[in-house]
């Protein structure tokens, strides 16, 4: 049986986790991850990495719990008005989900309702190197190269897994994917031990292993990767309103990431054709703000699709009777 050569384009959380997943579950293949950017310069490195599922209308998401805990913390998600769905679909997935008590809500005078639950935080700058190490340990290769066209990978590779996020605008000609710009501050405030998130998703405080992420913004269609000082001031002010002790935060660093947003995640096969050339592609991109929260679940699904492609390649073509 010939080794099936798989190229994974993109080395953010999707590319690396899919590559690792494939290495564990698809026998007889070689895996090469190709990207122009690697940790700590990917979008996944800017993300706080909260496992709080997004509320896409109609998108249930494939939210599979992570096997390895990176950081667990109690979350308070607070609402300025009572939501129509008081208990979200993911209540059973996180730990100890309940409504906040009146006493807890006293801490947030502008808010009338809240969820309290324990969830996980998975940090790109630590997680991605760990994934890379696992991949290399199982024989995977990692190459630095900017791919301008998926056909560049033909005929060196048999299957392409496209995890290029916003890059798919060009690589897959997908006009549905657009950036939602997020600016955050990473600060030192080690006394903060709880996640606090306003239900609008605009203001959040996420303590991490070595810093606290304060956010944020959701600027649709904005491609600007440079931080804006006015926005930073405004983020700090909103976060201090929720958690006044943050006025004592020090060593503030600004970061910007562009969420690869799309009406829905693109998770499907496509057989590219050009003349007689054929290139099976599994698209796995467009997770918007829910990338880290959903990644393992969608990586498993993408791996299943890759497996299907592998089966097709290994099935001998029916010989036409002459």
């Amino acid at each position, binding site marked *: 049986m010939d080794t099936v050569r798989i190229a994974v384009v993109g080395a953010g959380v999707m590319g690396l986790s899919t590559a690792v997943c494939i290495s564990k579950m698809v026998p007889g293949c070689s895996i090469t991850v190709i990207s122009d950017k690697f940790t700590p310069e990917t979008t996944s490195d800017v993300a706080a990495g909260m496992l709080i599922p997004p509320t896409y209308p109609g998108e249930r998401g494939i939210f599979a719990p992570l096997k390895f*805990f*990176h*950081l*667990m*913390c*109690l979350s308070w998600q607070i609402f300025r008005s009572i939501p129509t769905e008081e208990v979200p679909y993911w209540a059973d997935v996180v*730990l*100890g989900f*309940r409504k*906040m*008590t009146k*006493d*807890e809500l006293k*801490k947030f005078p502008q808010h009338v309702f809240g969820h*309290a639950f*324990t969830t996980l935080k998975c940090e790109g700058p630590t997680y991605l190197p760990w994934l890379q190490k696992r991949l290399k340990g199982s024989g995977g290769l990692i190459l630095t190269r900017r791919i301008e066209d998926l056909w560049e990978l033909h005929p060196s590779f048999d299957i392409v897994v496209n995890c290029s996020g916003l890059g798919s605008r060009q690589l897959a000609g997908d006009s549905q994917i657009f950036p939602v710009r997020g600016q955050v501050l990473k600060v030192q*405030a*080690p*006394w*903060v*031990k*709880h996640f606090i998130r306003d239900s609008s998703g605009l203001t959040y405080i996420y*303590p991490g*292993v*070595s810093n606290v992420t304060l956010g944020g913004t959701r600027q649709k269609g904005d491609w600007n990767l440079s931080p804006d000082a006015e926005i930073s001031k405004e983020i700090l002010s909103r976060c201090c309103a929720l958690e*006044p*002790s943050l*006025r*004592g935060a020090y060593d503030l660093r600004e970061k910007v990431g562009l969420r690869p947003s799309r009406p829905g995640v693109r998770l499907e096969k496509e057989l590219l054709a050009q003349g007689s050339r054929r290139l099976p592609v599994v698209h796995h991109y467009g997770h918007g703000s829910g990338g880290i929260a959903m990644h393992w679940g969608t990586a498993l699904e993408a791996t299943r699709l890759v497996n299907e492609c592998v089966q097709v390649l290994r099935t001998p073509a029916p010989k036409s009777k002459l």
Partner: protein
Amino acid sequence: MRVVVIGAGVIGLSTALCIHECYRSVLQSLNMMVYADRFTPLTTTDVAAGLWQPYLSEPSNPQEAHWNQQTFNYLLSLIGSPNAANMGLAPVSGYNLFREAVPDPYWKDIVLGFRKLTPKELDMFPDYSYGWFNTSLLLEGRKYLQWLTERLTERGVKFFLRKVESFEEVVREGADVIINCTGVWAGALQPDPLLQPGRGQIIKVDAPWLKHFVITHDPERGIYKSPYIIPGLQAITLGGIFQLGNWSETNNIPDHNTIWEGCCRLEPTLKDAKIIGEWSGFRPVRPQVRLEREQLRFGSSNTEVIHNYGHGGFGLTIHWGCAQEVAKLFGKILEERNLLRTPPSHL
């Protein structure tokens, strides 16, 4: 009025501040001094992890439950002030774990969001089958003592490094009221067979990914004899030692191993944690807190002593309620001596 506070742990300094805040304005003069042979970072308070949590069973003196609650509510009211972190104060949540079902603690409605653990949560702790989750408060000893010292200094209270050998020596220097906050060493000033050291040893580590406290319980062995992990403002405290009657202040290796093995079993990621330091301290154990007045006569002078010691492993948890109670007793002394200009407003 000359007031001498003996002891500069959390009890001494908070009581000093409480009295000064309540009575400075209503007294013609208030000359307050703190005498101690140990100041932060060398007090028992500095060794404590700083988590607000009373013992599980109801105290024999119901006043203690009330003082615990007063302290929690007082600290909670300070959350949200920009000074909270400077005081060493922050909310913290976590787990209490048991090997079998136990009744809810009497303080379940004092802490925030108290609930039982779900089966999925218990899966994280394979050695335990029952537990609680709640949000409480962290009051880190060292930071709080520094903050209290600053507040007292601002008010003109003076600090003296000295080992007081007897109440008499302090009386002869002219003290009107003595506040006795000598903790586990109170027996040196006045024998107290009810007071004993409850020796503890703790390891401080750098493990910033740990944001929850995890306290295990083994009712057969007793409180604080089972591993616990308590995050502080910067470092994590690991513990699980409680030895009644042991006066050894040096760290010992068997206890280190007990703590390390117990906590790593509970939280395997600790194997990557860097050890910052290790300390021993003596919880001032007593069946009840001694909080009462006593009149001492030396020659012709009549000096009031207010005792405030014996807070076991819950000093930080109960301190403010006790400080307020001492302030009340102090107020009575002032009334009896006709020293009040106007009634005090704080109580």
